[in-house]
């Protein structure tokens, strides 16, 4: 019998401790040299990059290492008065992906007066289609990620009634597959990142009870490999960002305990770069703010504490933002109780 292809990795043993000060340093240094190669080449997603970095810093309670006025000036600079959307950087086009990131940052700093929020609402409204789906921008691409961005943005702005929420949920359910998961569009294969978008959208819309949580929960816990890391689809390699997509989805479904939490923690810790700080997708790879946020986010969901009892702030599994911000805005998402009741 043919052996399965090797789709897992071997971890260094033992994993390093959680290096919070190094991560904080890595994030606050990131982008200080504007001519830096990585920084320039990721300009097209700058707004999301800001959100990843700032959220990761806020989980470590180090948000004050970045001057708020710089952040807000940048946000204002990226606001497109005509459409009401945010672009990733100046001179780029607005898109729903960066609109959510911008509104998340606005919420973090409680700066809802920084731009005309009613225009953002109109922008999101203009993207919804007859089948409930959302365009990403005026060029017409449809993706379940855009549904999540649209619904999460409106929820943060307390304007969910501006769209047809019922149809938005119906579209999400039309992307469901035989394995209980969700793909990017109706007919697309299940993928943990897109499952997070689907489950997150339904959680905001309080419609999570429309899905078969046992079936989806089982598929999600089958993402955990021997190494403890999660992959995003069957027979793929593990990656730190899936720690977040899978674990957050399981948390919303009330089934966070269906995985081996200790093994996951070990995997995540092994993805740190012990000299520069930051997390990579896998041990030994190049680190970036994206994987740094999702590594820290997953550790926060698990309530991880290091030996010095240092703790990350609690994260909200739907918005991927510090829970105290969501509480302050009095936003309630649906988290299933699990344990057979749902």
């Amino acid at each position, binding site marked *: 019998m043919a052996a399965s292809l090797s789709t897992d990795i071997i971890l260094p043993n033992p994993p390093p401790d959680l290096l919070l000060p190094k991560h904080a340093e890595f994030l606050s240094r990131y982008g200080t040299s504007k001519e830096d190669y990585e920084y320039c080449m990721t300009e097209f997603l700058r707004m999301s990059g800001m959100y990843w970095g700032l959220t990761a810093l806020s989980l470590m309670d180090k948000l004050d290492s970045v001057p708020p006025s710089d952040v807000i000036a940048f946000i204002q600079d990226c606001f497109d008065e005509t459409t009401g959307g945010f672009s990733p950087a100046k001179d780029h086009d607005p898109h729903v992906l960066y609109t959510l990131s911008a509104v998340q940052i606005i919420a973090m700093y409680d700066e809802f007066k920084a731009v005309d929020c009613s225009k953002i609402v109109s922008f999101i409204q203009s993207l919804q289609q007859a089948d409930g789906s959302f365009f990403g921008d005026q060029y*017409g691409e449809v993706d379940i990620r855009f549904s999540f961005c649209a619904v999460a943005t409106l929820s943060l702005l307390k304007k969910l009634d501006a769209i047809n929420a019922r149809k938005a949920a119906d579209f999400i359910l039309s992307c469901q597959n035989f394995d209980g998961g969700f793909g990017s569009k109706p007919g697309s294969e299940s993928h943990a990142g897109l499952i997070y978008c689907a489950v997150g959208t339904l959680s905001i819309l309080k419609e999570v009870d429309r899905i078969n949580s046992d079936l989806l929960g089982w598929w999600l816990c089958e993402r955990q490999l021997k190494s403890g890391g999660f992959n995003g689809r069957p027979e793929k390699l593990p990656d730190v960002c899936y720690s977040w997509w899978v674990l957050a989805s399981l948390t919303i479904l009330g089934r966070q305990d269906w995985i081996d939490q200790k093994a996951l923690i070990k995997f995540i810790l092994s993805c740190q770069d012990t000299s520069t700080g930051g997390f990579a997708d896998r041990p030994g790879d190049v680190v970036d703010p994206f994987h740094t946020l999702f590594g820290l986010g997953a550790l926060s969901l698990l309530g991880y504490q290091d030996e010095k009892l240092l703790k990350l702030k609690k994260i909200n599994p739907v918005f991927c933002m510090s829970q105290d911000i969501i509480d302050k805005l009095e936003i309630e998402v649906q988290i299933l109780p699990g344990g057979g009741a749902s």
Partner: protein
Amino acid sequence: MHGRQRVELSPEEEAKKQKEREAKVAAYQFAMKKIIEKRSKGELDSQMLSITGQVLAANPDISTLWNIRKDTLEKLKKADLSDFMDTVVPKELEFSAFCLKSNPKSYGAWYHRCWLMKETEFARVEEELNHCSKFLTYDDRNFHGWDYRRFLLDNCSLVTFEEELQFSTDKISSNFSNFSSWHLRSKILPHLSKDYLEEELELIRNAAFTDPKDQSSWLYHLWLLKSQLKKDAPQLRVLQVSKVHVIACFNVPVPMPSMDDIRIEIPGIIWKSPLNSGRSKLWIANTPADAIKDSDVQVSVSGKYIKELFSSDSMGIELDKLHGKFDSYFDEDTKPKTPAFDKLLREELAWVEELHELEPEIKWPIYTAMTLLRMINFVEFKPQITEYLDKLQKIDPKRTNYYNDLRSKFVIEWILLDKAKVDEEIVDLSGLELTSIYYPERFCYHRVIDCSRNKLKNAASLASFVNCHMLDISNNQIPVNLTLVKVLQGLLPNLKCIKSSGNQGFGVSMFSKEFADSVKIV
């Protein structure tokens, strides 16, 4: 950043690389400046295509540049349609293919192709299909490629469902471990007219024997068998009206019973579900005081989800009596099968168990055999099912809590099937190692419920015990939190006594004085 390894460079290499990078940054910034300048002047011309092309070739994720290309292309289309169709579009497709070569997961490059197809009314769809098939031979798990293929198929009638099934079969034959292709089959089968089941099962069997560790074919297998079962339509199963409350219980979760398909009305009634979810099997309401006439309550019912239990639209319901009864099965899996389907399930079981004997340490045959046994005869095969669960727990410790919940679900099912255990108003669920209480709605009419000495991890299920007078949850692992207090104090109106010792942190002080005064807490 995905899949880029850290490399240690010597100082000379580092310096060299730094120089290259500086040059790249300068080139990028120079090109971007030029592009923005041209765009602001409305210069959407072939030079614009060339400059944006240079930048995108190095980094195809810059969506703004794809937008600028689209704007430019539209302008060119307006100017000269035939040149656009014959020269510009082929070049553009080639360019996107070039970008995909270095970055096969570029959303922008893939969407650009979709956009070009729409823009040309799918004039080149056949060519594109061939191109896409070729692409999928290089990477048969690239979901962008699969999505693009479906997009093309949805917009032409070149390929029949039968042919598409064959495409998937070819892919699976070259690589059984191809979840994308199995997924595709799940989407095609509902469109086929012929009976495919036998052939599908054979393909699965081949895949499973070739690589029994690969979950793809196993997941597909269980889905395929379960999808043959008819889904139960929602139906009201049980209705009870007491002086205190109205309880309506359905076979599947339904929205609030005050809409067209399900309407149960007593003037003044306000329905709620135990945990405030939009869909629930159980719906409860306070009985409006003036609705009670002697020992009857006048109820009007309507809608297609009600009709099995009640024939007339309006009737007097006797107080406290339980109207209707629950199904003897729980979901489609355990519902009695036709003889033909039963035979087929047993045939499947035979080869799965054979494979299990060959490969006793692999979990998928075990999981599948267990599920098949549950589908064939859940009661008769209780010992075997339990044994398989034990094995799973042993060889797959990462998912031990999943199996604990699954076991808890089965245990409750076995109890519910044993009529003698649940027909009375007293039910004993104690000492069963339950981590969860599945089907809590089935205990909505019991007055005494004993869940003591289990491993219950939360209180949510308890919210369905609306008739319960005496609840024993002692010696569990229920965390003391708001949910617990909310459930016990706010959702169980009939509660007179609660036994709760042996749950850490549990005490009278958690509750309001009013609750502590009226309910005995031991």
